[in-house]
């Protein structure tokens, strides 16, 4: 469980800067599906007998705009195919999977690519969408709020009068009783986490299951019981029926979820007392500032060590007093409030994995050195073994050492700092005291701050405090392109120990928000998932029977949970290669790392695996990205759910549901409801 938690936190959170890339990928994927749909549609509409009744022409219109766009789209796809075969431009897919491989299991948001291939592919998709979307867009103007809402209201009334929802909500209440009554053997600091996990699980089940059931069965039942006759014989656009149902069930979900969330929040806030440790760890909402991780040492090709743990998610640095191996976190932009004069310190929090090569001392952690520098104070690895990392500006380093030694000297003699002053700056503690003020000034002047040694324990969160002056220094001027404003260097001091870390393991604390706000934001994630499920099942139910729609939607939804793990196999990123390659190894009893003989077999296996990977990626496009909407991990680990991230996910939700809406539009229009 915790492994997943960390993995999720490691996702590079989506930000508005990713929007162009997301749109491009959406155009490629949704557009690709639209192109296939368009092909079938046009083939059907154009090649059936020409003496079709007027009514058929109305149901399956082919406008000149559609034809025009279809032709343009075809040209784009043809151009893409030519470039693909000729190897001109580059294939986006390849680039994407490489990126994923480099970042191990981390999720990499798509980046906008202006190379010829991805651009033509996106354009082809765009025109295909413009073509097939034309009748849909035209009919959108015929939608009336009153009609759609009447159907939505009917859906809500029906579900409530059927008392189905009530039953589920009552069931849910059981889960609000203290978890410790049911699961007494857990660590006290995990109490809130566990409670949140249990309520999240319960509300997922008790929200999604009834929602998908009503959504999947409603339209088929309307057709079966012929109640749809009196609806479609009114001036109702067929799509209004789908939309009305969808809106109705979304409203229903919102009501149910709103109630559940409110009750849950009241319970968490007033209803019970948790262990103080749990409150400290979980009942908060930290706003982290995350950096990019890198590993460096004296040798240029160093990139961290693998110790064969956890799918190589973490890289390790070796410990010793004189090691040159460092883990770096680089921060490209620094928000103003980190350097605010109102604050005493900026916490830097981290959790590392310790891999013991030698037994080490009992009950003793690992000593770690943390150096934080700004772009104005460059650092470079030494040329020779055993030497320390140094400032790129050696004179500046000397000035700093001298000034710091002078201050320490004065402190020791109690000339400065007042009566309670510590014996050296190294002992200065954050707060409104003289010594810390000196540390702050020094950091602001040189852009350098170092904690020579602090003890960390395996997988235990730790915090060090940085002076805000450092960030004021970082914010002045413009660093050269590609240079981060702030870099954190971590060194392991204990010999015989290795320190494992991944990008998400260290961050700066930008601020704190309230747990309450986070709690309600978390509900939005669940809401999105429920809405996705309802959207899928309503769409499917316009064509399929209730049971089949239910099963198909559940299958799509549940397979989403496995999609990410299957993808690694499909894209050949797991160690043994793609599925066929692995299978061949299995037959030959090879180990996963022996290279397969070059030649025809290898080539055909390669092609087959790539084909499989391609098919799988298309399947992945259909499957909703449920993980992206699962935010409980943020909540229970006490991290703020970023508003930007939330908004982007809502946009992704719309992007995901739009093709489904298009599909349902065509399906319901061509459904003979009385047959």
């Amino acid at each position, binding site marked *: 469980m915790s492994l997943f938690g960390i993995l999720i936190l490691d996702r590079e959170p989506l930000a508005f800067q990713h929007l162009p890339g997301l749109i491009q990928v959406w155009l490629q994927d949704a557009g690709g599906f639209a192109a296939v749909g368009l092909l079938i549609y046009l083939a059907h509409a154009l090649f059936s007998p020409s003496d079709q009744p007027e009514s058929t022409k109305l149901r399956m219109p082919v406008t000149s705009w559609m034809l025009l766009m279809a032709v343009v789209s075809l040209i784009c796809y043809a151009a893409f195919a030519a470039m693909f075969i000729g190897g001109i431009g580059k294939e986006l897919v390849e680039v994407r999977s490489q990126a994923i491989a480099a970042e191990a299991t981390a999720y990499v948001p798509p980046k906008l690519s202006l190379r010829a291939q991805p651009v033509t592919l996106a354009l082809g998709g765009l025109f295909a969408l413009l073509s097939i979307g034309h009748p849909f867009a035209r009919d959108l103007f015929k939608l009336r709020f009153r009609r759609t809402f009447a159907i939505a209201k009917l859906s809500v009334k029906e579900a409530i009068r059927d008392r189905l929802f009530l039953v589920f909500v009552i069931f849910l209440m059981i889960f609000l009783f203290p978890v410790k009554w049911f699961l007494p053997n857990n660590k006290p600091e995990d109490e809130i986490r566990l409670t949140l996990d249990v309520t999240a699980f319960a509300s997922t089940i008790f929200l999604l299951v009834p929602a998908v059931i009503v959504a999947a069965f409603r339209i088929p039942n309307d057709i079966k019981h012929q109640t749809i006759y009196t609806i479609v014989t009114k001036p109702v656009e067929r799509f209004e029926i789908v939309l009305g149902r969808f809106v109705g069930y979304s409203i229903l979900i919102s009501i149910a979820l709103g109630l559940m969330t409110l009750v849950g929040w009241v319970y968490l806030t007033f209803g019970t007392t948790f262990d103080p440790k749990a409150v400290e760890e979980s009942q908060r909402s930290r706003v982290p500032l995350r950096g990019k991780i890198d590993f460096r040492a004296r040798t240029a090709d160093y990139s961290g060590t693998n110790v064969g743990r956890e799918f190589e998610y973490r890289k390790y640095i070796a410990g010793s007093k004189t090691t040159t191996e460092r883990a770096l976190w680089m921060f490209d932009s620094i928000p103003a409030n980190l350097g605010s004069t109102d604050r005493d310190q900026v916490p830097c929090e981290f959790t590392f994995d310790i891999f013991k090569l030698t037994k080490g001392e009992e009950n003793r952690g690992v000593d770690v050195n943390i150096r934080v520098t700004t772009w104005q104070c460059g650092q470079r690895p030494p040329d020779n073994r055993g030497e320390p990392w140094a400032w790129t500006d050696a004179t500046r380093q000397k000035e700093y050492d001298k000034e710091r030694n002078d201050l320490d000297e004065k402190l020791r003699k109690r000339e400065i700092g007042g009566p309670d002053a510590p014996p050296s700056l190294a002992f200065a503690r954050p707060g409104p005291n003289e010594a810390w003020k000196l540390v702050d000034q020094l950091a602001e002047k040189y852009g350098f701050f170092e904690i020579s040694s602090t003890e960390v324990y395996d997988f235990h969160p730790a915090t060090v405090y940085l002076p805000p002056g450092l960030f004021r220094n970082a914010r002045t001027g413009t660093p050269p392109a590609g240079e981060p404003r702030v870099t954190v260097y971590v060194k392991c001091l204990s010999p015989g120990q290795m320190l494992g870390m991944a990008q998400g393991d260290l961050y700066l604390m930008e601020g704190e928000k309230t747990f309450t706000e986070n709690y309600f934001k978390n509900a939005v994630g669940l809401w999105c998932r429920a809405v996705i499920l309802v959207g899928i099942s309503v769409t499917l139910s316009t064509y399929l029977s209730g049971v089949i729609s239910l099963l198909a939607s559940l299958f799509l939804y549940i397979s989403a949970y496995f999609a990410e793990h299957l993808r690694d196999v499909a894209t050949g990123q797991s160690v043994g290669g793609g599925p066929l390659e692995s299978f061949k190894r299995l037959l030959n009893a090879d180990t996963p790392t022996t290279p397969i003989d070059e030649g025809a077999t290898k080539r055909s296996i390669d092609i087959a695996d790539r084909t499989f990977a391609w098919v799988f990626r298309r399947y992945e496009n259909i499957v909703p990205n449920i993980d992206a909407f699962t935010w409980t991990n943020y909540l229970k680990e006490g991290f703020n759910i970023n508003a930007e991230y939330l908004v982007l996910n809502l946009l992704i939700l719309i992007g995901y549901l739009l093709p489904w809406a298009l599909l349902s539009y065509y399906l319901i229009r061509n459904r*003979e409801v009385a047959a």
Partner: protein
Amino acid sequence: MAEIVVETRGLTKVYRDFWGRKKKTALNALDLTIEKGEIFGLLGPNGSGKTTTIKLLLGLLFPSGGDAFVFGQPAAKVEKNEKIGYLPEESYLYRFLNAEETLDFYGRLFDIPSAVREKRAAELIDTVGLSNDKKRVLREYSKGMRQRIGLAQALINDPDLVILDEPTSGLDPLGTRWMKDLILDLKKKGKTILMCSHRLDDVQDVCDRIAILYGGDLQELGQVNKLVEDQKRLEIRATGLQLNDGLKHDLAAVIEKHGGKLEAFGHPTTTLEDLFLRIVDESKARPGRRYLPPTEEAKK
């Protein structure tokens, strides 16, 4: 010439299964026109294609061949529904709604503003005689009551064309009488009515013109009073005298004098029912029989 409200041209419906295999030809090349202001009856035994015709007109089914037009627009066009009221064969409404909510719901589907909607709903509930039961959910309604609320639902938009599928089924004699009066009333208001039934007395009482369907084929089409008229025979009706042999003898003599022959003598019984049964019998005897529109010569 009066405005044409409904028109079908070679309208054909073949029911097929999921794999496209033919199950049944329910309607075969139907040509029909219904003019504004008339009450048109579709007549035929069960399974003769009446409901299929109506569903095709409403766009609930898609034609396998030919085309259907209502108000000059193809049946697939949603806009035509603005002026249509439809009472399904059985009134399939939402059983968890009460009468008021039902009418409000269907009113919204016509995008009628709430003030108008409320007023009309109240009037219609009164018209169909459900004032005392308007707060009860439809689940608790009897068949007759459901038929009434179904009719109210069909009239919520004050339609120009009212399509009624078996409007009197499930109604008691009183209810049937009430329904017929209501239909005649609608005609008086200038509405066009298309109804289908297998209850011949109903049709005969209200319809101006009828079409008789059997096995998906149009068998007969025309004005009700003309169709039941027997051109070869003459009917004499009289009141105020007794039925006796003397009278019969005298009448036979008079008729013979004019070159005729007295066939029957008694109280009149000829009804639409006779015609209907005759046609069904004929169809069974000669399966290929179809109604053909009168040729120009025949008209002269």
